[in-house]
């Protein structure tokens, strides 16, 4: 019975569809047919306005310039020869070259072909005035991305370009079509859906002379949203100058809320190179540069942390009650285990935890490492966010790597006590990104309160709050206090490794690191620390890739802090 009812409903539904088919295709068919065939329809694409990107004080980082493009509708061309000779005279381009471009880009008779892009305004006016002679010709206004501050903030911003084949596969579900622009790397990519304006177009009906008869439909291009970042361009400028001729990265983050104030990776490039065709040679140089300027070292570079890793090790030893702050070990300058000698650069009769952090004594931490075991270190390093993504709002972030028995087993590699010893001073296979270490330092400085590093402040006029959540680590405050004493002693102790940073203007604490890299190049120089200023408290990191001794990093850190102080940024 009920199946009968279902059958009747289905029949009714199908009859309805057939009736509608009949109405649209047969009764109204003529009308639609005229619309579609007898009249000539032309589509004029209108590009959407991409949202601007601004720094925290409203400084414009990415903007749009109007550009004029010369377009031709193939089916409207009457006098091909005349048209191209006219264009070549106006644009100063070779006529054969123009014809070649036209052949290459011609697609269907209806679809306009772009002959020249970004021509000067006066030439555009000349062409517009001669339109009556060549009805196929018209000028399209489009927007061009423009980065006024050039090198400042390169890696944060990324750049825009036409969608390529691999990207279109990922995003075509979301309404992107091949000619539209899309962000590549950086904020341009991460916030592309917000920044991007919707492409629109005019569909116009033209008469036999190519004049517009009426507008059939218009899809307004829509405006993308402006976004405001947490970045301070003044800090960027300072950091960029400090790293000018070096390879490395500087990251500065507000410990109160996780706002990334500065993030510079060197060498950098000018994102305008990707936009303007005239920079082609510079662009090629960037792409083949041996130091890969495209790499954002702060989040995509994975480096051994060296002695900076002693912070999580010390924390682990204290919190799991293996030692107290008064536990001492003597350091003869080397450490022997299982017949293998592990080196150290200094000798001390006996020193406690705080002194050993200040002096960055390897032997002390070899002892801690063996007491904790690899798993003990792993657990705390992981709790501090090492070996996992910080989830900062930038694409392609790398997680770094923390070795332990299990992932060694997965790779069928044996784990020896020697691995643990190497791990306890941040060598072996330990890899971190600079941003991870800044986040760790921020957590330590706030005694266990973790913030989420982020770059977005506002989308349109709306404040973005989703990154403001803070969480509390389950490690006692007393433990953090001892670690902080050790890091402060690194600066204040005359034998401390960062004594250069002992200055009255700024309160600094931190940890140095000189990390061996796998190749036979110079060591990586690290300084990761936090500073309390009048304006704000920051956690920061200076990394010089193959920069030699950590002293090189502390000098830069000193200049960074002093200059920030001078400009009232700290």
């Amino acid at each position, binding site marked *: 019975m009920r*199946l009968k009812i279902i059958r009747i409903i289905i029949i009714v539904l199908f009859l309805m569809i057939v009736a509608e088919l009949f109405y649209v295709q*047969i009764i109204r068919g003529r009308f639609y047919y005229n619309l579609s065939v007898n009249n000539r329809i032309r589509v004029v694409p209108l590009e959407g306005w991409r949202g601007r990107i601004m720094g925290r004080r409203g400084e414009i980082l990415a903007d749009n310039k109007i550009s004029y493009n010369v377009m031709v509708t193939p089916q409207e061309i009457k006098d091909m020869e005349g048209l191209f000779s006219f264009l070549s005279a106006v644009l100063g381009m070779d006529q054969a070259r123009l014809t070649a471009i036209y052949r290459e880009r011609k697609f269907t008779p209806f679809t306009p072909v772009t002959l020249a892009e970004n021509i000067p305004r006066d030439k555009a006016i000349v062409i517009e005035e001669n339109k009556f002679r060549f009805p196929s010709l018209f000028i399209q206004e489009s927007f061009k991305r423009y980065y006024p501050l050039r090198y400042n903030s390169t890696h944060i911003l990324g750049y825009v370009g036409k969608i390529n084949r691999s990207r279109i596969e990922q995003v075509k579900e979301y309404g992107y079509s091949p000619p539209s622009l899309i962000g590549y790397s950086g904020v341009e990519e991460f916030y592309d859906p917000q920044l991007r304006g919707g492409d629109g177009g005019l569909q116009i009906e033209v008469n036999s002379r190519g004049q517009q008869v009426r507008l059939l*439909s218009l899809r307004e291009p829509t405006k993308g949203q402006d976004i405001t970042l947490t970045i301070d361009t003044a800090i960027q400028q300072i950091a960029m100058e400090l790293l000018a001729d070096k390879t490395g990265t500087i990251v500065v983050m507000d410990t109160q809320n996780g706002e990334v104030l500065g993030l510079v990776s060197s060498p950098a490039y000018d994102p305008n190179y990707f936009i303007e065709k005239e920079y082609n040679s510079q662009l090629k140089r960037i792409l083949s540069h041996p130091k890969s300027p495209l790499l954002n070292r702060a989040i995509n570079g994975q480096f051994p942390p060296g002695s900076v890793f002693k912070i999580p090790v010390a924390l682990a030893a204290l919190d799991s009650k293996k030692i107290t702050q008064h536990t001492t070990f003597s350091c003869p300058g080397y450490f022997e285990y299982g017949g293998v000698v592990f080196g150290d650069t200094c000798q001390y009769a006996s020193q406690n935890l705080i002194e050993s952090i200040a002096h960055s004594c390897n032997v002390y931490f070899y002892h801690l490492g063996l007491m904790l075991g690899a798993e003990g270190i792993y657990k705390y390093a992981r709790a501090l966010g090492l070996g996992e993504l910080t989830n900062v709002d930038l694409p392609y972030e790398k997680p770094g790597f923390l070795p332990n028995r299990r992932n060694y087993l997965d790779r069928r590699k044996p784990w020896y006590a020697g691995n643990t010893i190497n791990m306890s001073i941040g060598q072996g296979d330990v890899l971190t990104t600079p941003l991870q270490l800044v986040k760790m330092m921020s957590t330590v400085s706030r005694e266990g309160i973790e913030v989420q590093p982020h770059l977005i402040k506002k989308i349109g006029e709306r404040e973005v709050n989703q990154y403001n959540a803070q969480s509390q680590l389950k490690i006692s405050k007393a433990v953090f206090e001892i670690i902080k004493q050790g890091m402060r002693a690194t600066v204040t102790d005359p034998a401390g490794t960062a004594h250069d940073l002992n200055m009255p203007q700024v309160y600094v604490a931190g940890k140095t690191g000189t990390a061996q890299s796998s190749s036979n190049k110079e060591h990586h120089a690290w300084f990761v620390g936090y500073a309390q200023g009048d304006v704000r408290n920051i956690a920061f990191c200076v990394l010089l890739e193959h920069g030699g001794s950590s002293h090189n990093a502390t000098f830069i850190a000193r200049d960074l802090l002093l200059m920030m102080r001078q400009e009232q940024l700290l």
Partner: protein
Amino acid sequence: MPNVKRNLDKKIWIYTISIIAMGLIALYSAAHENVRVSHKVFYDQFTFALLGIGLMYVIGKIDYRRFYDGAYVFYLINVVLLAYVLLGGRHALGARRWLELGPISFQPSEVTKLALILALGRYLSNRRPSLSFNFFTKAQTFWREFFVPFGITSVYMILIFKQPDLGTALMLFGIFIVMLFAGGIEYRIILGFLIFCLCLSPLGWSFLKQYQKDRLLVFLNPNIDPLGAGYTIIQSKIAMGSGQIFGKGWLAGTQSQLNFLPERHTDFIFSVIGEEWGFVGALLLVYFYFRLISNSLYIAEQVKDPFGVLVTVGIIAILTLQVIINIGMVMGLFPVVGLTLPFISYGRSSLLIFMMMMGFLLNLSRRRTIF
């Protein structure tokens, strides 16, 4: 038994393959000499149609009870997949519908349709007869007969609505209502529920995304804003109507060949058929669909096992709803909700799932005498 239809399995095969063949021809045209839709789409769909035929054959042979046994597990696995799709893909801020498993990517929302039909089929076929000497209170009966199946459906609906995919979420609701109806629930419960939903719908408005609101508004009032959000509908109507009786000929549709039609290889493929093959071609396709559905209903009428009946009805429901709504949408009869045309729209997951459903019907048509 009166009116026994023979050779139902053969008919299912014939109509399924005819529809797919028409679809492939239309898809070839949609992707012809075109930058926006690559040729790959056609070969891709072709490969998956072949794969689907194999799958349909295999499912037709499997022991039918296995679907019953696996129904709930399948349901749960799919819940996990849907949740995973929502949580994964942090990077893309638009809709999240795709799941990547190594080299294979698919849309769990398509699989959901089958999973829901099987799960509801199993649950509803287990209902005790209502003759229980008033052992259960009215509330208990209501709970068992209505709320539990509603819960089963809502989990999926919410997960899919979140993607956001309004069309599929509504489809699931349709499956639920039709299967509940076929399961023999009292009329007044269904009627009451539908009225209840109608009263709540203004509330639902606030849950919709802006673009979904736009589409609905344009549908309700097409003459106010025909140039903005109504772009798609106008273009597809021009394409359909300009086909007239015999169409403009294969590969010769000006609307579709000239990129005026967005989504012409997926949601709007029917307008390609309408434009190039005219009323005759469109009618032929609609006839094939009708015959396929009608024969499926014969299967439902002849099967004795309640699970089989319910699942068949579920399949009929989803097939009918998608065909009617998709075609209606192309002609501006329904709002644009983003539903594919079964067997025809480009979409590997969608094609395979519908062919699996047909395999299930084949299975039943052969075994109807056993139960």
